[in-house]
């Protein structure tokens, strides 16, 4: 009896932590693998199509393993953003902080439809993408708190995080779209069958440079998936007040488009797979509109209730939350147990706590890093300080 308890409370979790790296899991539950449904097929919403004969499939297969992984990742994003909210209110995070909670199905669904060797670029609501593109919660949080362990060494902050094949994190609305098409041009040029996912919001969708980009991407058949994350508000302005046409998936005109339920991770994944196939087959760009919702205001300085009602926010939370939807699907199809998902929640909470602990105790960047990273591959140079007698050192 005593040994049994030892197993459950010490040895099994220890074993579980050993296995975490490899992706296998030891499940602390009375049930075994054989009890769970290994795979199920779900009906998903039909996408509205623009200049397309056919769209993504109306059914999606989900394996137990995939489901648990999507759940874990979305929950990690959710908790990470909520922790950022807390740290911002404590003034440990400063400046701009644009949170993604509510939109998790988009980031996770997109990544599930492409490869890590593909490329992705987005605007400033970017913490979740930094995670899906290979960043760790620790280095993301430490970047938010401006510490040397941050993913950009504390020099970029919330809006300027980068990883391999992830081009940020961009502060100027719309500017990331031509950049994304440029990445796609390089993909085509280098011939490695890679593509670029290029994200922007409903507010950015009216930017002129986006239409210039549509034109060139189409002319030159660039392997670019344009994705409009339509969360209904561009800062404090609702879509009806900003756009003469809110059919963002049609705004590419000559570019085929899909309108996707962005709260359903399976919908997003299937649409992304469909779009990726379109690009990789040399047909040129394609546009996806993900209909999604952000629970927070535009940024931490926006309470988010002057231009929309609390009832609206509450309604989305209770009826369309992406994490709840996945959870319900898995539970009602016997693909996971309640305890199992709770355990993931506990682990996620711990990961976030550890990351926050790191992010608040790691030291700030050293002063002698101030002037570094001006130029790449450049000999060391002198940089003028605040006055002519202060000469600072800059290395690549």
């Amino acid at each position, binding site marked *: 009896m005593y040994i049994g308890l030892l197993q459950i409370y010490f040895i099994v979790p220890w074993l579980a932590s050993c296995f975490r790296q490899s992706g296998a899991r030891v499940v602390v539950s009375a049930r075994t693998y054989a009890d769970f449904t290994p795979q199920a097929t779900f009906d998903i919403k039909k996408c509205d199509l623009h200049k397309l004969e056919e769209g993504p499939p109306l059914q999606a297969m989900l394996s137990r393993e995939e489901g648990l992984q999507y759940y874990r990742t979305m929950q990690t994003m959710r908790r990470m953003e909520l922790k950022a909210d807390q740290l911002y209110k404590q003034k440990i995070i*400063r*400046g*701009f902080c644009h949170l993604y909670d509510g939109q998790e199905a988009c980031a996770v669904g997109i990544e599930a439809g492409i490869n890590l060797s593909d490329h992705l670029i987005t605007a400033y609501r970017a913490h979740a993408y930094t995670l899906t593109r290979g960043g760790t919660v620790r280095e993301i949080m430490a*970047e938010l708190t*401006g*510490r040397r362990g*941050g993913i*950009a060494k*504390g*020099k*970029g*902050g*919330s*809006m*300027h995080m980068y990883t391999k094949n992830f081009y940020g994190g*961009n*502060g*100027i*609305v*719309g500017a990331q779209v031509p950049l994304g098409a440029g990445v796609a041009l390089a993909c085509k040029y280098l011939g490695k069958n890679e593509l670029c996912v290029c994200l922007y919001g409903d*507010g*950015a969708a*009216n*930017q*002129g440079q986006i239409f210039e980009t549509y034109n060139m991407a189409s002319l030159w058949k660039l392997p670019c998936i344009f994705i409009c994350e339509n969360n209904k508000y*561009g*800062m*404090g*302005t609702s879509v009806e*007040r*900003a*756009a003469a046409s809110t059919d963002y998936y049609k705004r590419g005109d000559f570019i085929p488009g899909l309108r996707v339920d962005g709260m359903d991770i399976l919908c997003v994944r299937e649409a992304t797979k469909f779009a990726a196939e379109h690009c990789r087959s040399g047909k040129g760009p394609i546009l996806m509109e993900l209909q999604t919702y952000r629970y927070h205001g535009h940024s931490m300085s926006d309470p988010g209730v*002057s*231009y929309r009602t609390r009832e609206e926010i509450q309604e989305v939370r209770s009826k369309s939350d992406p994490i709840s939807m996945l959870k319900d699907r898995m539970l009602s199809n016997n693909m996971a147990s309640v305890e199992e998902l709770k355990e993931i929640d506990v682990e996620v909470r711990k990961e976030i706590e550890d990351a926050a602990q790191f992010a608040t105790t790691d030291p*700030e*960047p050293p*002063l002698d*890093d*101030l*002037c570094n990273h*001006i130029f790449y591959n450049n000999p060391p140079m002198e*940089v*003028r*300080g*605040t*006055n*002519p*007698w*202060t000469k*600072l050192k*800059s290395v690549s």
Partner: protein
Amino acid sequence: MTVTVRDALNQAMDEELERDERVFLLGEEVAQYDGAYKVSRGLWKKYGDKRIIDTPITEMGFAGIAVGAAMAGLRPICEFMTFNFSMQAIDQVINSAAKTYYMSAGLQSVPIVFRGPNGASAGVAAQHSQCFAAWYGHCPGLKVVSPWSAEDARGLLKSAIRDDNPVVFLENELMYGVPFEMSEEVQSKDFLIPIGKAKIERQGNHITLVSHSRMVSLCLDAAAVLAKEGIECEVINMRTIRPLDAEAIETSIMKTNHLVTVEGGWPQFGIGAEILAWIMEGPAFNYLDAPAVRVTGVDIPMPYAKILEDNSIPQIKDIIFSVKKTLNV
């Protein structure tokens, strides 16, 4: 009574909207949101959709629309949420607004005000912290104004709106909430500060400090510290970047024989660089007892981490250091 810079700007716009039917405000979140920084609070409620217009996030487009409206007889106030975003529209500001009166040989004027916060804020990182005073100050055909106090904000914004030329009005986010004493005279509806005239905020005999916007506060703070050591600084608040009030600076140098300029922007080809060049070329050069010197932001993109950001812009100690070096004490 005390008035914050934000309220001074708000009241100035309110009064000018009331005074002249042709004045209107457009920009992102200026109407129903009350302004991203609440500078236009209450204006949409009072004046409605026709006079206070929320635009989509499309700077190049709405700046062009504003310039066109000015050409056709209206008097727009075009707000950039920050001047960083004006880079998206700068062609319209320079090529369509600034140069047109000249190109048309006096036929077509452009009575427009471009306003918004400029320069460093707190923790907003590289793409949101640039100072555009030097960029806009470079261009003939533009007037460029950079208020410091609430009185400056009020008087200069009114003058800018009443001016028949394109005026770039550089505010500062960190100054919005700062309260200043405002006399009865300044509160009157026709109180105007002339564009192109600097103000001496503090008299002194030993050295001239020339600055604009938030850095004026730092100069005054530095001057207070230096006064305890017997060094009396004359602090000049430029108020206008273009046209530069070189005469005020020269007159001061002829009295103090020493000059330090202080700005938040980058050093190369900047405000300080321009002032030093003017002084070299003008009558005040012979009155300098030491080379004139610039205190500026560090020549790097703005970092995010607090310790790095604090060391990227002039601090009071940098001004004090430069004054003492210049005075050789």
